[in-house]
């Protein structure tokens, strides 16, 4: 149990909320506003945790359990994700599958929480959520399968922490394809533009936000925090696929973190440059992601 293994989880737990700040800042810049402070989401969380809660009479214990499960899942998931050449705390063959399925568990409970309120809007959001996620999972796993074949390793640590320049030279295309597909997955999973609009105010159009309409106080805090961490983890994976590194741990880790932030900026750019897709068109880009992953797979298997 080397001490540096702790670094990744710590980073993700601490820095995750920052991503929202960065994204919002970028969008503000594009919109020509100053925008909220970078640490705004920290303040929000702090505020939420100190608030009381309001529960719908309809809800049951599932509603209370949901947010907790969500947060615990992502925290547990931090133990699986390597970054910047640092191995994950727990790395084993096929942990990537566990990684994906943990998010599945999280989603399962989020959706149930939404349905527990009996609100038609939250049901709507839930139904969209499950549809999109059903399409993202294959894209993600098939893509990573290609990577694992490429890197001859079965654990995330092996797949992500080894991308050095030498590897780049001959597996570039695969990396790129998978990276792009995972990027789409990333957008969908974190319900960003163009799949979802995190800060719209029309319930009919929202997906993730509408599912948590009835959550309040600490629960909402948990949810927001979990969302942040989830985003951080996925971006770490994406970065791990793309960014090469040389042996030096400290440089690598800093580059990785930087890359994550850059990704956040990129998201901000996308959000402010693109409009949200029509719901009916969302499956299409998700299918594109799948196609890319399959293409990558074909490339590595040929």
């Amino acid at each position, binding site marked *: 149990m080397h001490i540096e293994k702790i670094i990744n989880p710590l980073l993700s737990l601490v820095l995750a909320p920052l991503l929202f700040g960065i994204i919002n800042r970028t969008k503000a810049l594009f919109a020509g506003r100053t925008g909220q402070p970078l640490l705004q989401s920290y303040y929000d969380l702090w505020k939420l945790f100190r608030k009381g809660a309001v529960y719908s009479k309809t809800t*049951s214990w599932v509603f209370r359990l949901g947010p907790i499960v969500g947060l615990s899942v992502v925290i*547990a998931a931090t133990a699986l994700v390597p970054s910047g050449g640092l191995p994950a705390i727990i790395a084993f063959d*096929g942990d990537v*599958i566990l990684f994906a399925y943990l998010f599945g568990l999280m*989603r399962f409970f989020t959706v149930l929480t939404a349905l527990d309120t009996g609100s*038609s809007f939250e049901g709507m959001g839930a139904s969209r959520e*499950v549809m999109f996620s059903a399409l993202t999972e*294959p894209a993600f796993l098939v893509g990573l*399968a290609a990577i694992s074949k490429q890197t001859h390793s079965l654990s995330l640590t092996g797949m992500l922490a080894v991308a050095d320049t030498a590897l780049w030279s001959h597996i570039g295309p695969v990396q790129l394809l998978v990276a792009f597909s995972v990027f789409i997955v990333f957008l969908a999973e974190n319900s960003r533009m163009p799949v979802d609009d995190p800060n719209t105010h029309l319930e009919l159009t929202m997906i993730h936000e509408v599912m948590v309409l009835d959550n309040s*106080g600490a629960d909402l805090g948990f949810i927001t925090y979990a969302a942040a961490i989830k985003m951080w983890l996925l971006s770490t994976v994406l970065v791990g696929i793309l960014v090469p590194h040389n042996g030096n741990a400290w440089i690598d880790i800093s580059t990785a973190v930087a890359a994550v932030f850059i990704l956040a900026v990129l998201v901000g750019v996308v959000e402010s440059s693109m409009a949200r897709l029509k719901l009916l068109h969302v499956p299409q880009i998700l299918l594109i992601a799948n196609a890319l992953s399959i293409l990558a797979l074909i490339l590595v298997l040929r």
Partner: protein
Amino acid sequence: MSLFLWGLVIIFVGGLASLISGRRAGLAFFFGAMGAVAGSIIAVIPAFKVLLHGITESFRLNWSIPFGSFFIQIDPLSAVFLIPILCLSAVAAVYGVGYLWAYRGKKNLGLAWFFYDLLLLGMALVVVAKNGILFLLAWEIMSLAPFFLIIFDDEKEKARDAGWTYLVATHIGMVFLLIFFIILTGQNGSMDFDRIGAIDGGTASFLFVLAVVGFGTKAGFMPLHVWLPEAHPAAPSHVSAVMSGVMIKIGIYGLIRAITFLGHPPLWWAWILIVIGASSGVVGVLFALAQHDLKRLLAYHSVENIGIIALGLGIGVLGISTGLPTLAVFGFAGCFFHIINHAIFKGLLFFGAGAVLHSSGTLEIDHLGGLIKRMPWTAVTFLVGAIAISGLPPLNGFASEFLIYLGVFKDGMSPGLVNIIPVLGVIGGLALIGGLAAACFTKAFGIVFLGQPRSKHSQQAHEVSIAMLLPMVILAILCVLLGVFSPLIIRVFGTAISNVTLLPQEVIQGQLSAGSSILSNVVIISVLLVVLICGLSLLRKWFLSGRNVAQTETWGCGYACPTARMQYTASSFAQPLVALFRFFLRTDSRNLPPKGIFPDRAFLQTDTADTSNKYLYRPLFKWIGFMLSKLQWIQHGRLQLYVLYIALTLLMLLIWKAL
């Protein structure tokens, strides 16, 4: 072995006793259930012994039916199937006591119990039979007994049609098996399995196809699955649980057994199995998604899970034929493990559905809702089952799917474009299935148990009796345990796997120990997860302590008086996905959209009939009927022509032969 036989005898005697006691419900229940439970418990002991020690117990008795001999043998492979069969049946018998109790006085329950025990007997015999005739007989008993249980509610026309569909499907499958076994055992005098000689490639492939069709009909491979969605909803819930939980697995058993007879499998067998598996899985879960009858939904999920099992089997066969032990071991381990897991959580879910039906009187998901407050225990167990069947960690469903994934990740991606089949089939297929299954069960649990009651059915619902709860609780606990102890459990399959793959024991154990070490990591994460959940809930309590926690209506987004009818229904929940995959589903919906400012009436009615049934079998049957009805003129009632037939027949024969 003698224990096993005694168990069977007890089961049979119990069945007979309940048959005799007939309408005297008390006796019938006592004998029927006791026979099933006691017999199963006694008979399962040798199975465990066999599986753990890897020995093989056999028993042979001469039998005066031509080519027949009462030759039964419990080898590890049989044991793997025997254990879930007997255990689930025992539990289901207990549940049945609670479930059927409502019918006493209305129906002849002695009959119901008799056929239940007969079903149990048949299943137990099939997996140990080592003689063609015995196998076929047991198979037929196993297939016939459920018919009488499916048609239990015979005043309903659906039940009658279901019975017909079931028996016809199973008979057609049977015909293939008949040919299969007769060709397999060849010309030698006895049809004992240990006398089967070597089979040349061509014949083997032909036999393989026969086996896939014959056993696949029972297992419910797409598109041979038509009887499942009809039969499972019709039968009483404990029977549905047994049928879906273990009976269809016997089709898989037969397939595996058949493969062991057919020598070294060529690659394309594996590919066929994988393709069948993937398609069954995906299409099965899609259809499940489109249903709004709870038991029908579960029935389609059986198709899906059979698909997953077939994927594992395919990977295993691939491993054998390519000689990659990793593939073989992980494939079969996943296959076996998922068979057991599915038996458990599908049994659990059917029990849950039965409980819902029992207390609310309907299975129409869109009429239910809010049951979690009225039937808390059922809700908890159903939730566990739902998580397990969606293959989510930390429960058992994940462990078995994980093994199959792992097989492909480890060794399935050898170069060669054709390997796209296993890789895509398993990884892509399983991922898609997983996602859709999650969607389907969030729908099932969410709409049925959460929210507010959508009709008075679910308002008057109440928690069910202990006899029905206990089995559910047991199975739910088993789901957790099998998830937690998966690293230990998969080692048990070593003997069975060697039984099939003929790999040396130490190789298999090596692979399995690798697998179990991996799984133990998964378990660590799961434990971490549980710890976190507890910790966070404490944290939440601390956060909320001293702060005001209010109760209000659900936020209606500005709408003043929302009613329960306005909740999202199962149909609307599934609609996006159904629309996305409309190509497969071909849902036909009749709707009258609201018109005008004050629309007076509007309705939407969707119905997803089984595609293969609607577009393949029914037209085929219709066509056959039409063609044959053309022959009606032969019997037109004209005596003169009847005589003419005779004369002409004679004339033709004379011309053909004599002249």
